[in-house]
């Protein structure tokens, strides 16, 4: 319950990024003016062009999981500042202002839940918390919930949204690529299904580790998925990137995604997939 209270503010924050105040909002993709209630009913997708608005963990819980089944776990794991990192402001201050503005305790939320009555381990990343970046806490919570899936012998489903590794934790954050993969190696040995849902955007250290290691890798339509961010690539090659580059449809075409699922079909398809295992 406390979790719900804390995240209510978060939902508003997430949505505010793409949506101005008021009853109406404009689709950033096709320009359609959408009534906000209608947008909500459409699970935050544009009825005209299918643009998937970025949403938060709370919305995904509502969309995918059995109502009331989610119970958050590992909330006691919090960021330290092992390197006393200071750039334009200290890392500790950055974290404090993130806790305040998002109501979240980290860039990942983990817990147990049910889908169509089946127990699952569930994680969802929060892009609005320092760009969904992976530091020690994301790595540890990922490890803990994966271990939970392993101990209970239940599937593990994660929703990814991340700009990459957390620079303020330097080499520690880089090591999380190996840490998260190490526990996935254990899951693989014990035939624990691991299902990844990539949402907009998933790049950097997350895509170069657990994001690309699912037994089944799903993406939402239009999600930006890649290793390097588009701006870095443009700077390197000194030309504009083609339309649709690194979007889910492009990644699927090149063979690195299993399927793309519209948000409103996500739960139903997940049930079918879970039933296969």
């Amino acid at each position, binding site marked *: 319950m406390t979790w719900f209270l804390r995240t209510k503010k978060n939902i508003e924050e997430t949505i505010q990024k793409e949506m101005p105040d008021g009853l109406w909002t404009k689709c950033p993709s096709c320009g359609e003016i959408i009534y906000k209630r209608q947008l909500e009913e459409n699970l935050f997708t544009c009825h005209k062009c299918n643009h998937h608005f970025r949403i938060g963990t709370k919305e995904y819980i509502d969309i995918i999981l059995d109502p009331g089944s989610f119970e958050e776990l590992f909330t006691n794991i919090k960021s330290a500042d092992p390197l006393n990192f200071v750039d*334009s402001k200290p890392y500790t201050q950055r974290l404090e202002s993130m806790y305040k503005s998002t109501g979240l305790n980290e860039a990942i939320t983990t817990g147990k839940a049910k889908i169509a009555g089946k127990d699952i381990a569930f994680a969802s990343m929060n892009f609005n918390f320092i760009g969904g970046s992976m530091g020690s*806490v994301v790595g540890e919570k990922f490890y803990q919930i994966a271990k939970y899936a392993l101990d209970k012998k239940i599937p593990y489903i994660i929703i990814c949204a991340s700009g990459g590794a957390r620079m303020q934790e*330097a080499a520690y954050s880089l090591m999380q690529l*190996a840490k998260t993969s190490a526990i996935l190696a254990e899951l693989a040995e014990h035939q624990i299904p691991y299902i990844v849902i990539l949402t907009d955007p998933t790049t950097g250290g997350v895509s170069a580790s657990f994001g690309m290691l699912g037994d089944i890798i799903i993406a939402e339509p239009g999600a930006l998925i890649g290793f*390097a961010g588009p701006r870095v690539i443009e700077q390197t090659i000194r030309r504009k990137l083609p339309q649709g580059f690194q979007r889910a449809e492009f990644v699927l075409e090149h063979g*690195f995604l299993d399927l793309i699922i519209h948000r409103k079909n996500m739960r139903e398809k997940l049930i079918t997939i879970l039933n296969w295992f």
Partner: protein
Amino acid sequence: MGTKLILDFEKPIIELESKIQEMRQLGETFDIQEEIINLEKKVEELRSQIYQNLTRWQRVQLARHPDRPQSLDYINNVFTDFIELHGDRRYRDDPAVVGGIAKLDGISCIVVGQQKGKDTKSNLLRNFGMSHPEGYRKALRLFELAEKFDKPIFTFLDTPGAYPGIEAEERGQAEAIARNIIRMCQLTVPIIVVIIGEGASGGAIGIGVGDRILMLENTWYSVISPESCSSILWRSWDFKEQAAEALKLTAKDLKEQGIIDIIVPEPIGGAHRKPDEMYLILKEILLNELRPLMSIPKKELVKKRRDKFIQMGVWITE
């Protein structure tokens, strides 16, 4: 060796050295032997004083020194019987990664390294050590060869990052790195990783998971280069020195952080000053590290490797 790059902090040493050189020539006609010896002593003192007090940014510069030994230099001088094996058997041969079969003091093994060039031409061929997915997949198929024939693996990290380009993305750069990382958590043969120059980000750790992580004294290893870190966090390219300090990316830092196991000492002035000495130092350490690993039962070896990475990171439990 073509380049004669002199870093700022090397200048006082180079100046004294050329002075000695001049005096030696004079020494043929005048008796100044004693003065030469004194000056040589002074150079040694100056050298050790300078190199013991390098800033982090200066170490980054040393790590990038174009005269530093590179993967192929270590492979050719530390190992014997090296046969280079090309290609990923999927798409093409990526010259930014080299590898093959070799022997270390008679022990058959697999060696894989990220390979930079030594001049403009070879750097273009090697893509400055920035590999495409096929580079990681070449490494992977060599790892599989090691696994199949139960041979230990040595990897050498020296990259400014995985290449951020259109084709690299099309061919699944992220997947290639992720696949290598998880496979390296599964292989049952000993893996020794050596950072010999630059260890930048996912591009480096894509061949960087092992039982023992060694780092040469004048190298760096982090999630991002100081320049890119500066441009993102300070929104300017001018804060690379501060970024290097903040990232705490030197061998000494990473040892303190519990991320690497061993700092491999370099000859004073850096590996490029006395490469032959460097090869001997590294060979001895590699052998010392390898032998105990070879007697650990496979299951235990894998578990230890996974646990090693699983405990990495710093967090608070409330």
